[in-house]
């Protein structure tokens, strides 16, 4: 009988497994080949000490591609398809959040603005970062032309944030979503931005 696939994975990761299982895995041609493949993946995965930071092209790139290929309104949504799966919620804008400074270079996040069935604008934020145990993370909408103009959205609960956004805030102007590390009780933006990103409106 072949070695259990999950044991092969654990063996590839360097975990000890039962001696008879290990012997089979290394002598059976089929299992040994699979083990070698998985080991290569593990080696590669571990060789990446610092995961390279992913970034997204500006919204103008997709517009240029559409224009160059002569697409009309048919292919309007280049939004992350994951975001459109939300039932009853119509996605209206999204943003990919990327780190600003070097101290949070591993952080990333997403923000999705949708309209719920009562017409409210619901903003959902997911932050991926090694969060410090001190202070809080606060989300802000920042004016695209004047970064001193900011609206506070609120405090994230762990890596998640969920707020409604008043219709009086024009997201074409307050188009930048910013998440900052804040001291507890601090009311002004600390200047320590973890991630930020610009909203792309889904037309």
């Amino acid at each position, binding site marked *: 009988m072949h070695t259990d696939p999950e044991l092969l994975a654990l063996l590839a990761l360097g*975990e000890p497994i039962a001696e008879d299982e290990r012997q089979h895995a290394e002598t059976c041609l089929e299992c040994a080949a*699979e083990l070698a493949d998985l080991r290569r993946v593990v080696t590669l995965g571990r060789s*990446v000490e610092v995961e390279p930071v*992913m970034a997204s092209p500006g919204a103008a790139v997709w517009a240029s591609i559409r224009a160059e290929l002569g697409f009309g309104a048919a292919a309007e949504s280049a939004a*992350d398809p994951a975001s459109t799966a939300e039932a009853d919620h119509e996605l209206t804008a999204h943003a990919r959040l990327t780190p600003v400074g070097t101290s949070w270079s591993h952080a990333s996040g997403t923000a999705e603005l949708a309209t719920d069935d009562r017409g409210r604008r619901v903003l959902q934020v997911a932050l991926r970062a090694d969060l410090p145990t001190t202070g809080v993370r606060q989300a802000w909408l920042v004016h695209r032309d004047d970064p001193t103009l900011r609206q506070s959205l609120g405090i994230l609960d762990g890596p998640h944030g969920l707020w409604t956004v008043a219709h009086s805030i024009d997201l074409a102007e307050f188009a930048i979503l910013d998440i900052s590390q804040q001291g507890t009780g601090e009311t002004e933006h600390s200047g320590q931005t973890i991630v930020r990103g610009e909203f792309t409106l889904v037309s």
Partner: protein
Amino acid sequence: MGTQQGDLPTVTAAFRAGDAQALAEVYGRWSPLVYSIALHVLGDVTDAEDVTQQVFTGAWTSRQTFDPARGRLSAWLVQLTLDRVADARVARGSQTPATAVSTTALEDTARAADLAERLLLADTVAHLDAEPQQVLRMALHDDLTHVQIAERTGLPATTVAGHLRRGLVKLRQRLEVQPSAH
């Protein structure tokens, strides 16, 4: 972030058939990877955006040459990206003396391919669901055993082992590690 729609066979088939919406989905799923490779190699936002545009318009016009039997759409897009990045470097370095170009060009090509592989790996991990993603990171980067991960996360050890197995298989598929001959 758990979906992989830009890589689904139905989307890939629609893309090959000339469905503009499929290109939009492919772009939505893969443009961050294409752009990130170009940005890391070229180090310039404008150049990276130009490459991204060239890759996706090029992918569209040459979509018939993509053969799903020979590899994944992601691997094909990565190769197109590396080609366009190499072009951009040649265009940029045209003033460099010809004698110096050959060795550095080879080294640059190897470095770009290596970077692309690391970014593809990071992209694949980032698109796993939150729980398997966390478990896999703990096993790869924190060198924890599945039992230690189970203790720290509160998940059953069998669940952790299953996540690790599926995560590694997913990475292998995406990195297109060819099964060894046997």
